[in-house]
């Protein structure tokens, strides 16, 4: 059984987790994910750390389709994380205590096991998790 990202071109896992955004070749505007039109957008690595812009907790299982997460649902936190001088990205929040989520808290990119596809392969997704200074 293998493991693969939920989609190609969203993020890399090695040597460290990195989100891949797109920079507009004329305006310099940065977006996520990188749009497919390579004549107008070039892929760029996004900053790995940022601050929590807003958040909520998904308390019920989203409808399938389109959701492909586990049938055995457990609530998960989602949010927007502001990546300095780049963009604000929407993301699942992993390794968080729902009661301790605060706008402005420091977050960093990680990856997580999201689900298992029909062939038994692991599907992986990017996420942000609170920065643990050590």
């Amino acid at each position, binding site marked *: 059984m293998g493991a693969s990202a939920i989609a190609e071109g969203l993020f890399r896992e090695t040597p460290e987790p990195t989100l891949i955004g797109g920079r507009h070749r004329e305006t310099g505007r940065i977006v996520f994910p990188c749009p497919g039109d390579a004549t107008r957008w070039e892929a760029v690595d996004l900053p790995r750390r940022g601050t929590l812009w807003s958040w*909520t*907790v998904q308390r019920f299982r989203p409808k399938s389709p389109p*959701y492909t997460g586990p049938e055995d649902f457990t609530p998960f936190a*989602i949010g927007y994380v502001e990546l300095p001088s780049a*963009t604000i990205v929407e993301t699942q929040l992993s390794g968080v205590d729902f009661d301790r989520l605060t706008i402005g808290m420091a977050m960093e990119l990680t990856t997580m096991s999201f689900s298992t596809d029909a062939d038994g392969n692991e599907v992986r997704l990017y996420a942000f998790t609170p920065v643990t200074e050590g």
Partner: protein
Amino acid sequence: MEDVYIVGIGIHPFGRTNGMSGLQQGANAARAAMADAGLEWPDMQFGFGGSDSAGNADTIVNELGLTGLPFINVKNGCATGGSALIGSWQAIASGAHDVGIAIGFDKHPRGAFNALPAEYSLPEWYGEAGFMVTTQFFAMKLQRYMALHGISPTSLGRVAEKAFRNAVHADHAWRRSPVDIDTILNAQMISDPLTKYMFCSPAEGGVALVLASAKKARELGRDQVRIKAAVVRTRPPGSFEVFSPCMDIERGGAPTLLASKAAYEMAGIGPQDIDLAQLQDTESGAEIMHMAENGFCGDGDQEEWLANGWTNIDGRLPVNTDGGCLACGEPIGASGLRQVYENALQLRGLGGGRQVPDNPRTAYSHVYGAPGISGVTILER
């Protein structure tokens, strides 16, 4: 431009009507609106109408009669009803027609709206990962607004409590039993900070409005309620919208700000001149944020407004007098016209137990929805 009057209003009750299609509910509303105006289907010179998920509105001729009238389908998300109204208003304001009808209806399955990425030009992974859920957006916009402007959960509860209290007196509402604020605040959390009583539910219903020129309205003895403004706007740069994988750090305006400003300019009046308002309340925080976005108060002032009951029926600016989407449910294609129906009813003094006192003269309605559109109308008696 010619003045345009609302000469007939009709509604099919919101909520659930088993065994009746959305289109049939729209036809029921149309019959009621024409009867209210003293007119019949062959009198309609044109129609504009739409639904989000209950089919093409022009097939309503099968229900109402094959008169050969031009009927334009509208499919514009939450602004479907507002856009149908604008089309109808322009058809008469331009002098092309004397009388016509705007119809909005819908019928959605139970549970959350089931949006698919391709419908919004988004990649498949975005839906697979669990981001295609409208409640998340409303919760996150609100969560940040509450933190920035000091809005309390109690205020969210007050909005929902008011909605159910007003709906007790609205025949067309779905949820017509009062719910006390402690029950609302302590109910099951759906998407933090919003509990189940703070969200509207997808529903069914139909609304129709018959519009006419000044000359025709006078003939009918129905020259009371005039459309002063009807506008729809899409989003400006830097707005925060549903289904956004990212957004710019430099924050900007909102479609509601654009629509509101344009409507006040068209009407030649300002928010201080409005006597009552129907504001998009997909969830109770949306009503709070839209109070400010439509110019009725400053950001953060809503705490004082709600604590003092200023948006109650007898307050300084009654808001969502029929219980809004929270109590009526959300049939997307019909909600915008429901707001205008309620405003016209109030301006005619027919609100019954929910009638705004002291003969209101101006009424404002506002819808907002995916993917960043807003519609505003202003009526005057």
